């Protein structure tokens, strides 16, 4: 007869952390929150503590050396999660400075034991643990003392049924530190500075018995505390697939016909064209068409000078809350963060249409360290958005080259279900625009290159330039017609 023990999971209350840990924090686990100074360890610990602590499940927060407690309280109370009323009720701070200054780990342990026995906390925090280690250095046998201290502390906390967090400054994760062996969970916070952007990332290096998400995950500290941006696919549920004949109108007369009835719902469309070709106008028309059909939409705007103000219908729809806007002016945004913001807006508005305008601006807005993974992250983003049931239009700046036919600088063409390309051509000394539907996956579509114009009412699709050829080369030639001689 085998009856396994059930390990309860605690919900940490830190957005994204439960997903990252693989489903919350195991009860009675012994965890280490590590990282360089200023990377958010104490903030993370406080956020977890205020979220989890109740009078029935009280928390003890031991401050050792390092940051003076008054200063810690001064800064931590700036966060929304900090609750004055909880202090001395469900949250108790205990200063171990005197014991630690004496450099005697046994005294530190005795005091911890005493306080734990007196208050029977369900949650215990020791901040910072690094200072405990430093305080004991110099007597020659630090490693052994520390090992013994760790084992005793771990044993004590587990048998007192306390979920424990040691907060420590560690500069290298390759330290053969006894703490790493004893700990059930290792939460490592890192920060990297590149140019003028600072990016914070979290890694769960170890979480016993839990399928935690591997790798580094971006997080941000705002007035609400720590927020982790876990990869989209892990936190979203796929929407049921649409039928291929369920189409979303593009909002441009004639374009739906070119696409055999519009953009299939749940598809992603790449709209590529040179600067000034009217990509944003077409993308706005797509959102406006949704609103006219009773749908809602979300636009992620990364263009430096958004022309939304000029598009009255779009501006009105935004004002009336039918179209949500996701913008980020931070210099270190990650794709996961944008995905998080988009998903939030999509859920809030129950949006069925999403526009990213433009991918080029999006890439510029990303923190330098995120740019390397742009393609991979974008693929996940598109999958996640369509997984949410949204029909997605992304615009992409396309350098006009008349020697080759390219759709995007990122190789994004393969990851989208449909592609519309816009080009400039020269006809009779005039710059004219043509548009073509290049791809609609699993669907018939027009193969025509159609001229179009942009005016106050939007995009008008014109006729086929049937008497021209070589359009994509940029210098079309007229067929079956003699070019009128200019020179007499």
């Amino acid at each position, binding site marked *: 007869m085998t009856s396994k023990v059930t390990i309860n999971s605690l919900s940490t209350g830190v957005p994204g952390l439960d997903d990252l840990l693989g489903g919350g924090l195991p009860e009675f686990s012994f965890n280490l929150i590590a990282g360089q100074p200023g990377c958010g360890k104490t903030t993370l610990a406080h956020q977890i503590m205020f979220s989890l602590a109740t009078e029935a499940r009280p928390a003890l927060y031991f401050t050792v050396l390092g940051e003076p407690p008054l200063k810690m309280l001064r800064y931590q109370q700036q966060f929304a999660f900090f609750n*004055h009323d909880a202090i001395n009720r469900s949250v108790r701070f205990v*200063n171990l400075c005197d014991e630690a200054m004496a450099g005697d780990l046994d005294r530190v342990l005795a005091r911890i034991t005493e306080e734990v026995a007196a208050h029977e906390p369900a949650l215990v925090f020791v901040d910072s643990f690094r200072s405990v280690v430093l305080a004991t250095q110099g007597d020659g046998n630090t490693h052994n003392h520390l090992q013994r201290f760790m084992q005793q502390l771990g044993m004590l906390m587990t048998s007192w049924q306390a979920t424990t967090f040691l907060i420590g400054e560690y500069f290298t994760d390759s330290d053969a530190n006894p703490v790493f062996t004893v700990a059930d969970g290792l939460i490592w916070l890192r920060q990297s500075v590149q140019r003028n952007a600072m990016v914070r990332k979290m890694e769960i290096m170890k979480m016993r018995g839990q399928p935690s998400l591997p790798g580094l995950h971006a997080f941000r500290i705002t007035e609400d505390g720590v927020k982790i941006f876990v990869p989209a696919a892990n936190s979203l549920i796929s929407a049921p697939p649409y039928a291929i004949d369920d189409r979303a109108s593009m909002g441009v007369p004639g374009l739906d016909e070119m696409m055999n009835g519009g953009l299939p719902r749940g598809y992603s469309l790449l709209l590529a064209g040179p600067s000034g070709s009217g990509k944003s106008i077409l993308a706005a028309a797509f959102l406006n068409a949704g609103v006219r059909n009773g749908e809602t939409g979300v636009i992620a705007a990364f263009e430096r000078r958004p022309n939304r103000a000029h598009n009255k219908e779009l501006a009105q729809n935004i004002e009336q809350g039918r179209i949500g806007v996701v913008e980020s002016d931070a210099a270190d945004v990650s794709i996961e963060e944008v995905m998080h913001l988009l998903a939030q807006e999509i859920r809030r508005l129950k949006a069925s249409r999403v526009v990213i305008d433009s991918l080029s601006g999006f890439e510029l807005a990303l923190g330098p360290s995120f740019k390397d993974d742009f393609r991979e992250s974008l693929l996940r983003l598109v999958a996640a958005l369509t997984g949410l049931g949204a029909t997605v239009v992304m615009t992409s700046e396309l350098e006009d080259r008349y020697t080759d036919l390219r759709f995007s600088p990122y190789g994004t063409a393969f990851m989208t279900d449909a592609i519309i390309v816009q080009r400039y051509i020269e006809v009779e000394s005039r710059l004219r625009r043509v548009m073509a539907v290049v791809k609609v996956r699993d669907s018939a579509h027009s193969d025509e290159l159609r001229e179009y114009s942009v005016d106050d009412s939007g995009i008008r699709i014109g006729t086929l330039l049937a008497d021209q050829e070589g359009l994509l080369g940029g210098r079309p030639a007229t067929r079956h017609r003699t070019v009128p001689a200019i020179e007499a």
Partner: protein
Amino acid sequence: MDSQESSRLTAPLAHRVAEDADSHQIAAAINALWTDIEAALQPIVGSRGVAALFKRTLHLAAARHPWLAPLKPGNDDAVDLGQLTALFTAQQPALAREAGSALFEIFRELLATLIGTPLSERLLQTAWSNSSRAAPAQDPKS
């Protein structure tokens, strides 16, 4: 709001001393109140943290009451409560009462500047409630 909060904080000393109390009684009450404050804060900010706060308080109070200046020791140890009591005992009751109130008022402001009024109130709750419990025993009219 400010005057209300202020009265809540200066009240403990008023509660601990009767209106006709002599300097001895006032000094004893100040001593007891400070001991309660220390007991409330010491677990959280450590004995050195409390001593540092009190030294700053005394430094500020000595500007108005120079006779408090001898209490500003330079070492890391806690403030000498015996000396504190002796200094207050040596004053006229009215002056001792005024200086004592000022001392706790300055302390309140100092702590509130650092961690905000709501949190300081929260941390010092036990010190204040001790004083209100002690009040009847100190009050000859009850």
